[in-house]
């Protein structure tokens, strides 16, 4: 799929905090009974990870799993594997009521890295982004400025953020603006 391109084709901007279009990522929306053993094993088989607790993200060798709602997960996998993994999950769940759908192309994904990354997000997300409240393993669906978004920390001072593809350019501009030199509150 060489002709598939992400929203800004990998563009990045580097000011106080670096913002990068992370490129294409496989994303699968999985809705179902999160307590079901079958679902747990299907997810484990797909990404090698357990089901995350509320507002958490877990990572396995083949990808990540994020908690989206009491009956919804988001699987993060390699872009070119998304269709196959979607099918694999549906097959594993068989008749058990669920929905697995590839939404990789519906999203944009950005990396926010550098000291102050959490402050860039705290300019737009009405949540507690202090180190005590938000760390590696936490995952939050919220808004950033006027846009719906979700994000998590991949390592210290590094976040990944997803939003809808149609507003990816706006999100990039928003993040770049919030990451301007000299604009960090230096609070956290």
């Amino acid at each position, binding site marked *: 799929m060489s002709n598939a391109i992400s929203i800004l084709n990998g563009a990045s901007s580097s000011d106080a905090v670096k913002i990068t279009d992370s490129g294409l990522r496989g994303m699968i929306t999985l809705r179902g009974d999160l307590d079901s053993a079958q679902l747990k094993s299907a997810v484990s088989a797909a990404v090698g990870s357990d089901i995350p607790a509320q507002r958490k993200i877990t990572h396995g060798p083949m990808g990540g799993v994020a908690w989206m709602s009491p009956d919804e997960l988001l699987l993060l996998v390699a872009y070119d594997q998304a269709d196959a993994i979607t099918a694999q999950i549906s097959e594993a769940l068989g008749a058990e009521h669920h929905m697995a759908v590839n939404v990789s*192309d519906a999203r944009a994904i950005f990396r926010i890295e550098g000291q102050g990354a959490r402050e860039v997000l705290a300019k737009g997300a*009405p949540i507690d982004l202090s180190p005590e409240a938000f760390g590696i393993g936490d995952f939050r669906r919220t808004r950033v*400025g*006027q846009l719906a978004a979700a994000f998590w920390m991949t390592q210290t001072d590094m976040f990944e953020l997803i939003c809808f593809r149609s507003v990816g350019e706006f999100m990039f*501009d928003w993040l770049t603006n919030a990451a301007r030199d000299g604009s960090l509150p230096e609070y956290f």
Partner: protein
Amino acid sequence: MRNRLPSGGSLIDRSTPVSFTFNGKEMKGHKGDTLASALLANGQTMVGRSFKYHRPRGVMASGAEEPNALVNLGEGARFEPNQRATTTEVFDGLTATSQNHWPSLEFDIGALNNKLPRFFPAGFYYKTFMKPRWAWKHLFEPVIRQSAGLGRAPEEQDVDRYEYFYVYVDVLVVGGGMAGLAAAREAASAGAKTLLLEQTEHLGGRLSVDDALIDGKPSGEWISQTTADLGAMENLTIRTRTMGSGVFDHGYAMGYERLTDHAPDTRGPRHRLWRIRAKRIITATGAIERPLAFAGNDIPGVMLASAARDYASLYGVGVGKRTVVVANNDDAYRTAITLKEAGLEVPAILDARPTADGPLPVQARNLGIRVETGTGIAKVKGYKSVVAVAICDQSGDGAILETIPCDAVAMSGGWSPVVHLWSHCGGKLNWDAENAMFAPDPNRPPTGADGQGFVITAGTESGDLATAPALQNAVDAGRQASREAGFTPVERDAPLVIANDEAPMLPVWSMPEQAPNKLRAKSWLDFQNDVKVSDVALAAQEGYVSVEHTKRYTTLGMATDQGKLSNINGLAVLADSLNAPIPQVGTTTFRPPYTPISLGSIAGEARGTLFKPTRKSPIDAWHDKNHAVWEPVADWRRPYTYRRDGETTQQAVTREINNTRTGVSVLDASTLGKILVKGPDAAKFLDLVYTNMMSTLKPGKCRYGLMCTENGFLFDDGVVARLSEDEFLCHTTSGGSDRVHGWMEEWLQTEWWDLKVYTANVTEQYAQIAIVGPDARKLLEKLGGMDVSSGALPFMSFVEGELAGIKARPFRISFSGELSYEIAVPAAQGQAFWDKVLQAGEEFGIMPYGTEALHVMRAEKGFIMIGDETDGTVIPQDLNLGWAVSKKKEDFIGKRAFERDFLQRADRKQLVGLLTENPQEVLPDGAHAVEDGKNRYGQANMIGHVTSTYFSPTLGHSIAMALIKGGSGRMGEVLEFPLAGGKVIKATVVDPVFYDKEGARQNV
């Protein structure tokens, strides 16, 4: 700097001079000065004109409560009116101009109003501009608009940036004075994550000026020690230049940080709006001194006693060479003592109380200052500056005892706790008769979701005006806040404070007590809005009893200072006039923000390209490069048409339509909503949300469906494709995808939670490209990869496979009436697919078309558009879509509503087509059809309106759709559409399907 004292000025740095201009005049100040202190240092006593009478006005206060010293600050793109000189830090290159005068501050024509005060009494607007009626629009309003407002509105776009910042803390402390520092220390020591906001650059508040010995340390030392202690605490943050400006529900508070006001050329945002969630909020906002109401109390040179003290002590500025102090309390003696010790003359202290024998009066007398008790000011002499005061017996009617020459008056009517933040979210007040002030009632705090109070006051704001109890109160507040936030306060000794005792104050609302109207008419309550004692008395006389009504009638407290100095005095005068006790009259409402905040900070980053998100399709950049004329469609932008060189927009649309009808064209339909619905009960669910039957749809097939609200009104439509036995893809309108998805989820989660159905909004997963026109199939065949023959892919069906090497799902559906395929491909490959389509289509003369061509072609076919033919009151049957409303289904949303007689009336407005008499003439959108006669209001008898109207290049005729009363029964009738200007367009009612009624073109 003629008023700069040889010594003193703890906040200024005498080694760093600063240059600024006021009304174009170059002036000097020191780093650390406020604009007000620098102006005073330069002898600029008069700084503005009042709102109504254009009276000369000088600096009245030294902080946020300042009513008079408002200036235009900055120039060009950094110009801002109504900036308080008292809270503006002076910097090199600052430019300020005074406001509300013409032609100059010194000579102001508007001051004529001052000579005619009897023509401008309280309620003057309501009394004056009543008659004649025409005069309001043509005479009064233009004149009032001309003179309204204090500062000028900025003309250039603001070049600065603004932003928000969200934080969560255990304890928020507002105010960095003694109480705030002490409370924050207690809270943070207990382990609470604490944030302290201080509006000025400096911590310490009034303690920086007024001496006390705290735990053995003099004030200044205690402040620096405590500040250092706090600075060392990991869990405590102090932000200066940040005002806690509002308290809202659920522990939400707003902080207003001014980052570059004092250094405009620094990078970074100018203002940052902190949006803070706190478990507990401690307000340690102190108290504000009240003016006294005597004649001439607004003349430049008359100021609050505390301000005169601050200017001497903090900025080394003597506000006058000879300052008369007038007061009703002991605290003001501190001003006299400070001035005297600074080497300035204090000819007299006039004390309204019968006796004054406390430690402070004794100290003043010992310094040789003359103290007159039972005495007040009859009037201040002077106009642009103070020349003398005439003194009188406080209990009398103003008979002059003596005239004392002076150039400044320091007045103090007592202190009022700053209860604003406490009150913003519902904290209640008690009247403290001893100090004649309203103070927070700790038993009636603003409450959170748990019913517990979430705001705690600390220090003088609590009503403890003396240092020792105020400090103890602050310590207790900090401990209480930390405990309530879940921490355990650290045990430690109570603070030990040694400060001067103060004798009780005496309430004085009018000076002298029996002042005749002549004096009261010159005794100001609200300095900015020019409200005097006589105005409030007049309002009471005219029957106003509520303080809220009196406020609006007299404009007391309605200026930009929101009555910080005038409220208590005003309502006391009202109470006096009404013969009612003050607490019964009550206060007006305190609303956030505490002082005005910039509009920029409220807008935050949302300006320019970040003003509002625009949704863009995966092919957006191509459209932009290829001369798309953009049209907003909900939050999307879509090409209206693609204009070629030399074309008008209309010509471009016509070209696109003709090409589609005769060859092949391509449309970016990616914005179309797409909701995936899956589960064993998916078919049952869709039968409930659509008006027509979806459960009978075969996998691989498509069906057009309608969605109605519970009231039967049509709100969305689209094609449903059955992907498999338990999986459907529902197309929605471009603007409706989020709404429809939310609608489905709401029904599933709240009403039909027993149905096993999941939904997902997959709108953006796909780029959807419509290939339309007689040559469409040839083009698809050329793209190659699947069988697209009419046998393999008949009308209203879809297949899945690959086209041009890209995973694709073509739907054989048509919104134009032509042979048409809407092809969904993964969004990330949308551009690639689009490119391949254009490349392959070259030999067929392919061209892209925009939304206008789409609209015209759908209208030619009589297809409705949600939002054009519907407006929230239209049911499917009105649009001849009764065929899509199932009669067999047991239930669906809207079914019950259709039984209502109103929705069954035969004369409802129904969809018809219109052909104008003159085929070249296009009806205006929304034009009304009228019938003979008048309605019950004497208006033309309107029977309906045009909903869609175009010139159809296909038919060479103007066409329109309209909703007309009983329209279905009016075929062949000629209707009249009168337009503005008297013109009438006539059009014949016809079937709304204008073109290819049999559908022969799309079904090939």
